[in-house]
Structure formats: structure tokens, C-alpha cells
């Protein structure tokens, strides 16, 4: 039996624990092998370079690409910036139009927004209620000045997976570069850019059981040969696209994480989708008025996003946050009081967005933990509904849309 206080981590979309096998691989590179991989004239440098080269191969094998197509960065945010700003600067003479989606991560949206100051024109595609983009709308948005389409592989909040192959085909047909923020997908589901037609792909190590502070950008070298303008000046590392001494221990760990993912992700996905379905089934059958957000047939195997009507997410989390770690689409701590823009983009009312909880399971999640979380959630939702005036009104049959609310 579980002894309290038990801590259950169901926030793996925020970050994953570093796999102990990854940590073991990294350790020698802090002290015994301290070299700079760019030092060409002594064995310390050579063994660091070997470590980096091997990691690059491990990562390339996960994606079925050439190791030379992997550019190491500090993480997905940097990779997104490098891809989008780098393409814009490199291909500015061909056009200034970029197409992206309203539900992208801020690292993409804010980067695109920033580029408008430099003369970029951005089209933001809307998504349907299930979180998917409309392919016809995408194709219609492409014009002669379009240089880049940027669509995330899987959404961080809902786990919804976009129709990547179809998007790749459209980009191919129109001769437009296709970039994807694949942070939530790499290492968890197959992400083969060459099969899909993705030319640039950004992601990070710490969401696939590797260490924090290291990420990568895949940049296609052949058909088409893509180049991005470096965003930092310096020693010209990473084929001139990303200067800065490489994070050798981090990269070695990232490589090991990629190797483990390549060998284990299918088994992990199968196990986790069963656990996720169990969590979902228990919650939705034991609690009234819960809604799953996003397309349930096109989503990541370890994620579910559920709105518990008439319960505010942050308050709900407070009932169990000593024991269960999850995320909420309610942003009561921000000055704007705006709920998740991703859920609002799916057409959820602000009230349901404020009532949402994201559960993201991971490699180390057990069935016992899921069952424990279910009990805590059911108790928490019931407690919050006992406290909720709008739940009481709903139960009395009051039509809440007719109530004169005093918005503040």
C-alpha cells in the first residue's frame, strides 16, 4: 500500500525526470573527461569530441537522419528562434511570409511576432474544436512570398498531433520550407522528418528523459539543402549555425536518452496509453460534467487534458498539490487573468479553460500512482464543487449564461 505523503509526478510535458541510465553516461564527462570538444590538439579534446559525435549518431538514428543534420543548442526555445529567425534572414530575398498556428508554443509565436518588426508578414492558422488545423486553409494561405510553414508536431497542453505528413506534402507541392517544433513528440512517437517532409525540427533533451540545458535543431542538408543564419556570433561551431562551446556532458546524456527512446518508445507508448485511458475513464465515470479537450484519436499516448466544470483549476490543484503534480489551463497568477490561449483557440469558453487540468504521464509513472491520483482528483473536485456557488446554481437548474455577472 501507498504510504503518505506520496508524491506523484504527472507533469511530464513540463519536464521529464532524467533517466538514471542517462545520468550514468554523463557523469564521466564532468571530471574524468573534462575536455572541450573543439580542442583539436590533445586527447582531452578528442575524447570530448568522440562523446559528442557518438551522441549525434544516437540522435540521428532516432530520427533516421544524417548526424551532420543535427545542430546542438541550449534547448527548444533557442532551436525555435534559430529556425524561424534564421530562415527568415537567410531567405529574406525570396519572401517575407511565414505561416504558423494560433496554438503554437510561445517560443514560436513570440519569435514570429518579433519578426514582424523586421518586415515579416505572419499568418496564424486557426484550429478546429479538436485542435487540428484545416489543411485547405493552410494551402490557401500559401502565396508567392511564403518562405516557411511552422506547425508543431504535438501540442504541449492537449497532446493533439497535427496531420504532419499532409502538411509536409502541401509544403513540398508549393516549394515552401516546413519547420516543426517537435518538443513534445520526439522520443515518444516516431518523428522521422525525411518521411514527413519536415526540413527543420526543434526539440529539447529534458522532455525525453535527458538533462536540461541542451536541445537540438534538425536542419535538412539534402533536397533541399537548408541553411539558417546564425543568431549568435562566435567560434563558428555547429557548421557555423550555432557558436558556443558545446555542453559535452549534456549532449552525451541527450544522445543516451535518444538511444533509449529509440529502443523503448513503442513499449512506453503502449503502456502509457493504457494508463492514460484508465485515468481518463476513472475520472470521467466517477465525476459528472468533465470534458476531454482536443482530438482523442490524434494525440500523444501519455497526455490528457480534462475540464472539470464549475471548478477553478488552480484552486483544485491546491487540494492535492502536496501529493500530485499536474498543470492547469487557469492562469489566475497572471495579472491578465487570461486562461490558456491554447484551450481558448479550441473554442472552449473561458470558464471551461479555467477549469482544465493537464495530466502528462511518463516512463516512470506506475498504475498505483495513477490510481492514487484518481482518488485525490475525485476528492478534490467534489470538495471544490461543494465550495462552488456556480456548481450550486447549476445543480438548481439556473442557466448560468443568463446570470448578470459582474466582470472585474
Amino acid at each position: 500500500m501507498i504510504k503518505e505523503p506520496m508524491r506523484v509526478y504527472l507533469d511530464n510535458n513540463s519536464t521529464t525526470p532524467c533517466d538514471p541510465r542517462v545520468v550514468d553516461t554523463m557523469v564521466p564527462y564532468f571530471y574524468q573527461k573534462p575536455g572541450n570538444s573543439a580542442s583539436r590538439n590533445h586527447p582531452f579534446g578528442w575524447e570530448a569530441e568522440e562523446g559528442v559525435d557518438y551522441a549525434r549518431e544516437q540522435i540521428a538514428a532516432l530520427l533516421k537522419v544524417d548526424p551532420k543534420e543535427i545542430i546542438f543548442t541550449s534547448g527548444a526555445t533557442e532551436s525555435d528562434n534559430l529556425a524561424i529567425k534564421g530562415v527568415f534572414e537567410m531567405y529574406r530575398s525570396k519572401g517575407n511570409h511565414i505561416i504558423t498556428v494560433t496554438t503554437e508554443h510561445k517560443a514560436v509565436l513570440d519569435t514570429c511576432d518579433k519578426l514582424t518588426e523586421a518586415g515579416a508578414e505572419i499568418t496564424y492558422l486557426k484550429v478546429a474544436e479538436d485542435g487540428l488545423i484545416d489543411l485547405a486553409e493552410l494551402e490557401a494561405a500559401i502565396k508567392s512570398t511564403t518562405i516557411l510553414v511552422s506547425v508543431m508536431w504535438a501540442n504541449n497542453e492537449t497532446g493533439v498531433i497535427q496531420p504532419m505528413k499532409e502538411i509536409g506534402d502541401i509544403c513540398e507541392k508549393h516549394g515552401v520550407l516546413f519547420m516543426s517544433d517537435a518538443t513534445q513528440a520526439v522520443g515518444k512517437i516516431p518523428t522521422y522528418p525525411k518521411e514527413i517532409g519536415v526540413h527543420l525540427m526543434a526539440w529539447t533533451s529534458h522532455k525525453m528523459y535527458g538533462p536540461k540545458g541542451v536541445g537540438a535543431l534538425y536542419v535538412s542538408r539534402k533536397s533541399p539543402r537548408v541553411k539558417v543564419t546564425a543568431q549568435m556570433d562566435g567560434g563558428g561551431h555547429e557548421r557555423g549555425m550555432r557558436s558556443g562551446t558545446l555542453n559535452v556532458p549534456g549532449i552525451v546524456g541527450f544522445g543516451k536518452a535518444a538511444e533509449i527512446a529509440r529502443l523503448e518508445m513503442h513499449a512506453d507508448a503502449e503502456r502509457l496509453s493504457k494508463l492514460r485511458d484508465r485515468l481518463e475513464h476513472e475520472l470521467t465515470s466517477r465525476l459528472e460534467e468533465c470534458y476531454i479537450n482536443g482530438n482523442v484519436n490524434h494525440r500523444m499516448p501519455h497526455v490528457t487534458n480534462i475540464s472539470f466544470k464549475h471548478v477553478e483549476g488552480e484552486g483544485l490543484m491546491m487540494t492535492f498539490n502536496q501529493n500530485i503534480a499536474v498543470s492547469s489551463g487557469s492562469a489566475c497568477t497572471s495579472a491578465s487573468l487570461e486562461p490558456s490561449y491554447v484551450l481558448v483557440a479550441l473554442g472552449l469558453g473561458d470558464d471551461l479553460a479555467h477549469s482544465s487540468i493537464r495530466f502528462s504521464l511518463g516512463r516512470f509513472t506506475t498504475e498505483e500512482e495513477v490510481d492514487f491520483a484518481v482518488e485525490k482528483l475525485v476528492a478534490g473536485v467534489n470538495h471544490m464543487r461543494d465550495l462552488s456557488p456556480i456548481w450550486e446554481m447549476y445543480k438548481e437548474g439556473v442557466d448560468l449564461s443568463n446570470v448578470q455577472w459582474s466582470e472585474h
Partner: protein
Amino acid sequence: MAYSEKVLEHFQHPKNVGTLDKSKTTVGTGLVGAPECGDVMRLQIEVDPSTQTIIDAKFKTFGCGSAIASSSLATEWLKGKTIEQALTIDNMDIVEELALPPVKIHCSVLAEDAIKGAIADYQSKIGIAVTAMAAAH
């Protein structure tokens, strides 16, 4: 962000959760906030008309921990106060008592509005001039 001890105490053991009979003339109800904003507070008072003293107070709140704590504290403070005394409760008193961080000040504002709303409702029911309106935000 960590919550203060007092917020946690009110959240875990909220005082005066419940519903008073809003059809009674001695009961005033204040309903403030909106589901779209992530906060709805309903605060009710029952007044002894002979002394103009609040003899009972109840709340229900949809919102974060700070919103629930602010309303729980408000009901505690209201009981035993006269209407006149109750009107002097300022949102900053709640901020101070619960050690609310700046991003949570709106929760205390909502509680003050709910108090004023409940008093105004009571006063209009018994046909006396409303002393204070909820501040507009």
C-alpha cells in the same frame, strides 16, 4: 508560488461555507466576479434588524486558494459586526491578514465587493437607502 500559512489554513478548513435562505428579508446576498474571469464569490449575511448586527455569514466561492481564503476570512470578520462596522472592511486589511502577493490582490478586492454587495442587497430589501455600492473595477 508558495501560499502563506493563513491562506492554506482557510483553504483547507474554510469557515462558514454554505447557503442562507436568500428569500428572507433579513438575508443579503452579494454575488461578484464571473466564471470567465476564473473567480465567482457569493457572500451572504443575515442581519438582526433590531440591532443592525450581522448574526451569520456564509460563502461559496469558485476560484483559486486565495479567493477562497479571502471569502472565508471575510465571513469570519463579518459575524458580530454592525452594518456600519462591516462597511469599513477594506480589501487591504484582507491582503495584510492573509499575506497575499500582488498577483492575488484582486481576490481581496472581490471579497470587499462581495461584502458591500451583500449589505446593499440587505438594505434594499428592507427599504433603506443603500449606504455603499460595490466599487467598480
